[in-house]
């Protein structure tokens, strides 16, 4: 164990560090996107990279997302490992065809001859007071696209570890960065060698025996807060942070639900057709006889993302999570 004291770092800083370390470790890693160079990105995640590695390694592209992803595909074809930044969730949509029809399919199309090792970083989700198109939770689209990995960190350490793993992966990874956690801080020492988590493992963030909250990304801290608040009601909630939506860690999730017998899926994304449906359905398929109540979902409403002044009503908060937990058909003794 190292003796270096842990220093607080933000998730954004951990991401920057992950990019820097990846670029230093492998000259094939190239960062590209709108404003990622001189400016360091609108969230400053690429800050300093152009200076340190040159503009050929960290490149301000023309303003065209399909072009960014499409040229990144070509670069990956030639053996580079592009790390693409989409400036905001909704601004990744112009690249949708490239993503679905090429990025997700190239390895399969060519029987493995032409893998595309590229990472697509997308700041996503709300809670930062962004105007229209700056707060979408678009993970349902990516989950429904075979050939992509989809991961999203909830902690500073995972931000580093998962991004390193994504860049190291020989498959394309959609790397969803929860915008409102960019400035979340944690004791994390960037100067210490970091363990790189393999992609695909969920983690139990809090153990509990009454029910399981299954969540990821921006909703993890909310669920942890809800779990704390639930103690007053006599519920001891377990919180599972999925970290990876694709592949999905059935093992960890189902082990937890089998233990607790109850589950609520929590995410910001709209409920209808959102990730929660898949998660609830597969947990139910696998744990039916362990369930005391249906797996419930607490999600964003099925509406276009609200304007800043109304977003608090939309986002799953502690109260709404506790209300769902209360609907898990408790008998007095089962808490």
């Amino acid at each position, binding site marked *: 164990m190292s003796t270096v004291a842990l220093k607080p770092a933000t998730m954004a800083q951990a991401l920057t560090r992950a990019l820097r370390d990846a670029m230093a470790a492998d000259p094939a890693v190239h960062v590209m996107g*709108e*404003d990622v*160079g*001189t*400016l*360091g990105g*609108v969230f400053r995640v690429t800050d300093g990279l152009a200076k340190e590695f040159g503009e050929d390694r960290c490149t*301000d*592209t*023309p*303003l*065209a*997302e*399909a*072009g960014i992803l499409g040229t990144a595909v070509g670069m990956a074809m030639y053996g580079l490992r592009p790390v693409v930044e989409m400036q905001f969730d*909704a*601004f990744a*949509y*112009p690249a949708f065809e490239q993503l679905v029809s090429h990025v997700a399919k190239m390895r399969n199309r060519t029987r493995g001859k032409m893998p595309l090792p590229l990472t697509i970083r997308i700041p996503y989700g709300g809670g930062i*007071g*962004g*105007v*229209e*198109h*700056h707060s979408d939770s678009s993970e349902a689209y990516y989950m429904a696209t075979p050939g992509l990995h989809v991961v999203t960190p909830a902690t500073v350490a995972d931000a580093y570890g998962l991004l390193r793993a994504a860049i190291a992966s020989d498959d394309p990874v959609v790397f969803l960065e929860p915008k409102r956690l960019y400035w979340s801080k944690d004791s994390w020492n960037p100067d210490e060698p970091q363990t790189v988590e393999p992609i695909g493992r969920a983690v139990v963030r809090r153990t509990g025996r009454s029910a399981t909250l299954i969540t990821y990304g921006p909703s993890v801290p909310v669920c942890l807060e809800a779990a704390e608040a639930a103690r007053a009601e006599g519920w001891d909630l377990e919180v599972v942070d999925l970290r990876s939506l694709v592949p999905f860690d059935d093992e960890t999730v189902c082990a937890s639900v089998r233990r607790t017998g109850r589950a609520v899926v929590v995410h910001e994304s709209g*409920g*209808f057709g959102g990730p929660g449906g898949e998660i609830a359905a597969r947990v139910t398929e696998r744990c039916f006889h362990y369930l005391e109540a249906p797996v419930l979902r607490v999600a964003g*409403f*099925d*509406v*276009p993302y*609200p*304007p*800043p*002044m*109304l977003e608090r*009503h*939309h986002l799953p908060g502690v*109260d*709404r999570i506790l*209300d769902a937990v209360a609907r898990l058909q408790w008998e007095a003794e089962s808490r």
Partner: protein
Amino acid sequence: MTVMEQRGAYRPSPPPAWQPRTDPAPLLPDAEPHRVLGTEAAAKADPELLRRLYAQAVLGRRYNTQATALTKQGRLAVYPSSTGQEACEIAAALALQEQDWLFPSYRDTLAVVARGVDPVETLTLLRGDWHTGYDPYEHRVAPLSTPLATQLPHAVGLAHAARLKGDDVVALAMVGDGGTSEGDFHEALNFAAVWHAPVVFLVQNNGFAISVPLAKQTAAPSLAHKAVGYGMPGRLVDGNDAAAVHEVLTDAVRHAREGGGPTLVEAVTYRIDAHTNADDATRYRGAAEVEAWRDHDPVQLLERELTGRGLIGEDEIAAVREEAETMAARLRERMNQDPVLDPMDLFAHVYAEPTSQLREQQALLRAELEAEAEEGTAR
């Protein structure tokens, strides 16, 4: 014959199909941008128009500074200032007739206000109480468009629809230099040219897309040269010269109205402020560059012309400035009032009728709000 065919050049050629169907020469922009102020052409300009442009530009500048101030006071979530670009903003609005349509990009609040939309309603998006605050049909102004260039095909479709109906409507669509790189820009211009739609595309080339300078955006001789590839005329204009922009746009609008089809106008200007109040422009450009452009300020160019030629007096200038102050004060005052919000609006306009799924969610939120209110009363 289709409406799309009602014009000259639009004819399939017989094989061999390689003969250029039109001569590119008339489509090419001039090497130098069109200018009026400070040139001999200014003498021919309508003094009344110049005064009007000036008054509007002064108002516009004040609107920008006031809105930026409101971000500092937490009254606006964000504001993308168009300081330095007022000539384009004002001229775009003034070049249109009442029945025409304006398709603004996210930065073009000034053009929207100049077209007659309520200033507070214009800022709704940026205040954050709703998305579009105004009724687009009232002044025929499409919603401020955040996804870049996506409003351009809308303008083409609307203009095309109006033409199909036989209505006298021109659409003017605004986009930034960065926005020209998007696929939607390309597709919109191509549709407009093929359909011969009455649209004018105004590119405000303000030198940057956030931090990315024009040279990383395009290698074209000029953005106006892009017109050639669609078979429409390209025009280059000094975007800080309100009289010149007004003239070029008015010509293009008239041309479209008369059935001449679309035009691409590149107005070369400069964004004096940062991208938005949240941006730090010192990261990507030096003060000297900004200063150089201050010498070519659109408001001052107008003022110099008007005073230099004795078309405006001290009193009138003072009156114009006072009007701007009054506007700003009124805006401040109105923006300092909290907007009235109803969270149930979240469900009201998703569909013509809420689905049963939405009604369930509506009930959930209503119950939460009632519980909240009760708690509030109880306390």
